[in-house]
């Protein structure tokens, strides 16, 4: 009796195993976007500041006409940089994902061009799962951190700014329990793992 499995290799994320099913995924809470909003505020302040600075006669008398032109060009260049950072921040937020599968918890920490970090913790290695939600902001906006105590001594895996931490806490615990108990055949068939039917052998009389 053998099993024919649906090949999930690299299906939902790079590095997914052939028999691995994604149970759920999450990104960081939208509160991390606030820092990018601050960047926009800085853009506005830069603009206002430089505009007033350049408008003053004092600065123009100090720098001269050529200096003023250079300063204006620098303002244009300087104001583009935070805009660039804002969009890169969105990309990086998008690409930083935590995936909970039926085998492991994977943290994909990528940036647009340079970084591609993957950190996986097998469900069987997890000794304990802790959910932490402290403070008014975390309670009101429903985010927190999830810590995984791994069997390796002194190792602690922490996911910060996890939205809806209660749900993900339960999901990891449930996946861990299923992994430890061993998923029964019905569950596997339900998820697309097909049992190959063994044909009876027919004895041919000569």
């Amino acid at each position: 009796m053998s099993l024919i499995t649906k090949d999930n290799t690299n299906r939902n994320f790079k590095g997914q195993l052939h028999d691995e099913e994604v149970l759920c995924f999450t990104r960081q809470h939208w509160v991390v976007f606030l820092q990018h909003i601050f960047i926009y505020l800085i853009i506005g302040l830069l603009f206002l500041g430089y505009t007033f600075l350049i408008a003053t006669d004092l600065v123009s008398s100090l720098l001269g006409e050529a200096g003023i032109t250079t300063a204006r060009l620098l303002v244009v260049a300087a104001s583009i940089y935070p805009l660039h950072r804002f969009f890169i921040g969105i990309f990086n937020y998008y690409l930083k994902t935590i995936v909970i599968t039926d085998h492991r918890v994977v943290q994909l920490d990528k940036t647009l061009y340079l970084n591609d970090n993957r950190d996986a913790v097998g469900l069987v290695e997890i000794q304990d799962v802790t959910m932490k939600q402290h403070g008014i902001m975390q309670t009101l906006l429903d985010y927190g951190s999830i810590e995984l105590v791994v069997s390796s001594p002194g190792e602690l895996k922490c996911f910060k700014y996890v939205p809806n931490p209660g749900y993900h806490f339960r999901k990891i615990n449930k996946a861990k329990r299923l992994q430890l108990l061993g998923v029964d055949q019905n569950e596997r068939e339900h998820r697309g793992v097909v049992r190959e039917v063994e044909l009876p052998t027919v004895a041919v009389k000569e």
Partner: protein
Amino acid sequence: MRLYGYVRKYRFNESNYTLLLGFIHLNWVATAYIVAVPVWAVLSFFFLFH
């Protein structure tokens, strides 16, 4: 083109199975980025030199 293919394959396509905040596709963000930077540069240049 090779870099574009790499980014598309290993960054964009991997995120195809979902959307940011439920409705924003990463391609939209990329388009907004490509459009916003030159528009911002032109506008700020115009604003400062006139």
